[in-house]
């Protein structure tokens, strides 16, 4: 009995000391104020090789070029979003990024309750009723998908003799992670790009239902390759690493997504449909620093060099000049607003 009491006293004392220590630490904050930018990831966390990593890269650029402090928090469940965003604001961040469309509601709430801090949301739309200190950042993924589609559509038929990686079956494929808006825009753009240069081309599509299951991605790609696909576009996050692996093993070509994925398998990745998240994050931070920040939605597209395809790298000599010229011309038309690209499957009648 006595021992129990002693133990309890000990625990209580320890808890009190801890609490006191933490209180003290709280008081010490906010001595020197340096410019600071921060981000909270969605539940996918860092290492997704997609928007979370992209935003992180952008903040690293901010640290290097603007000499600002940066801070990154990974959310584990959806209840974490609001406290993380508000916490980052309380830590003295000048701008806080919410990354991923899942955080839409959370970041708008945080912005409303912290009017002195700027907030920005990647893949999140800002409406008229949303607070003025919130900026939504969207990308025209369908443009990147379209350009990648143009390359794929031409390589799989007209120029299939350029490399043994291509065959004459005139089939290409897309592997999706989960069916969510940015993924849909990439896919739908790709299909339109392929059809624009190669109307007879068959575009296969598989949804794997996961962003982390490499084995599933690989299997989906292999099934497409069996059906004659010689170029597979992956829009599946880490699941997509399995897609690239399958293409590498079967000696066909893959198209990466979000970032330039040539490094994953230089001899396999033809190009990547990129989305320049780092640059746009940098621009947003810079606007805060220069006091030019405005709320509302910024939609970045090819005219800002935010969407498009990455260089061909190892395929530079394989891809014929005609294709490069066509890509340049389509990109120019896109900038001039001459090409209308649908953004949903429904619009394509799928």
């Amino acid at each position, binding site marked *: 009995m006595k021992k129990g009491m002693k133990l309890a006293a000990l625990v209580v004392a320890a808890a009190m000391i801890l609490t006191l220590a933490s209180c003290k630490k709280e008081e010490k904050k906010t001595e020197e104020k340096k410019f600071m930018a921060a981000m909270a990831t969605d539940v996918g966390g860092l290492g997704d090789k997609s928007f979370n990593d992209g935003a992180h890269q952008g903040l690293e650029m901010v640290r290097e070029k603007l000499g600002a402090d940066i801070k990154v928090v*990974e959310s584990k469940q959806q209840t974490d979003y609001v406290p993380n965003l508000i916490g980052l604001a309380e830590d003295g961040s000048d701008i806080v990024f919410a990354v991923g469309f899942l955080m839409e509601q959370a970041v708008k709430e945080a912005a409303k309750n912290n009017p002195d801090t700027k907030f920005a949301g990647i893949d999140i739309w800002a409406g008229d009723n949303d607070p003025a200190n919130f900026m939504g950042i969207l990308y025209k993924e369908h443009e990147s998908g379209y350009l990648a589609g143009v390359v794929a559509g031409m390589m799989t038929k007209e120029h299939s003799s350029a490399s043994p990686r291509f065959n004459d079956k005139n089939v290409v494929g897309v592997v999706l992670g989960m069916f969510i808006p940015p993924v849909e825009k990439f896919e739908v753009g790709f299909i339109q790009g392929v059809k624009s240069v190669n109307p007879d081309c068959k575009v296969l599509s*598989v949804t794997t239902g996961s962003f982390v299951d490499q*084995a599933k991605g690989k299997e989906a790609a292999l*099934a497409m390759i069996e059906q004659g696909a010689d170029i597979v576009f992956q829009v599946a996050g880490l699941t997509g690493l399995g897609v690239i692996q399958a293409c590498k093993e079967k000696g066909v070509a893959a198209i990466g997504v979000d970032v330039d994925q040539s490094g994953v398998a230089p001899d396999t990745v033809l190009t990547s449909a990129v989305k320049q998240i780092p640059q746009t994050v940098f621009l947003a931070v810079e606007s805060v620093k220069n006091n030019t920040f405005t709320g509302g939605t910024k939609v970045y597209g090819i005219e800002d060099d935010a969407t498009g395809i990455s260089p061909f790298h190892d395929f530079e000599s394989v891809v014929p000049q005609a294709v490069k010229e066509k890509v340049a011309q389509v990109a120019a038309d896109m900038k001039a607003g001459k090409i209308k690209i649908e953004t949903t499957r429904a619009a394509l009648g799928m």
Partner: protein
Amino acid sequence: MPDWTFLMFLNTDLLVATVRLSTPITLAALGATVCEKAGVVNIAMEGIMIIGAFFAAVTAFYTGNPWLGLAAGVAAGGIYSLIHAVATISLHLDHVVSGAVLNILAFGITRYLMVLFFGHPGTSDAIPSFLGDYQFAVPFLSKIPVLGPVFFNQTPIIYISFFLVIFLSWFLKYTKTGLHIRAAGEHPLALETIGVSVYRIKYLAVFISGLASGLAGAYLSIENNVSFTEGMTNGKGFIALAAMISGGWSALGSFLSALFFGFADALQVRLQIFRVFHVPEELFIIFPYAATIIAVAGLVKRSRPPKADGVDFIIEKENE
């Protein structure tokens, strides 16, 4: 008139894909079978697999040798499973509880170590060489139509899984140790009275299950693919549990059930490609799970677990 061209999917490639998809499930289910035969319930395959996958990838990455990675993955799985053995056998912890703990721990540990080893979470850097390079065709046998490419032109761990199915079936049925393992799950007291340590037999069985699940993990990270991804097991350990149960707690049954699930999964991918039905693709993804339920409901005969499965065995009778 529906478009029947999709039927061209019913070919050898479908069966090869079935084997590929079912291998990790087969291996984990085999391990679980041995474990449960000895009376220890194991729901920790998911966690053991992810540990095995991680250490296989780390070792293959730093040594550049996938065979060492294979060894490390198997060993890590075995060592990690010993926690389950200590907890359930020596500390008389509820088996389901211990398994649940191991699953939680495994995800925490791999995420924590990812940052330590690779400096970033998410996915590891690609390993320089992987076991998929060692695919080889067995002479003559691989020429047999259909069965040849399916069973005799595969990668190393797939061959190991075939071997294990046969070996474990024989081992459990005809060897003395196998007999002891089964006795530990059916009549532990009888086993003890003939002078065999039930504890030791159970430890052995749990360890074997850890090795098999570790191998399943290694298959995912260094044979099927070239890097480790957090959460890459994606529920396969639990599917293995289902395969073992619907396989009637036998090695061969587990293998067949795993093949069935792999087949359903391979088929749904192909149905998606052909867009045979114009429905949301999530319904295709659901297909293997629904098929498993139907199989369990209608096709699989009523089977029973080992009598003393999950029952705590204490020699000196002690109550809480």
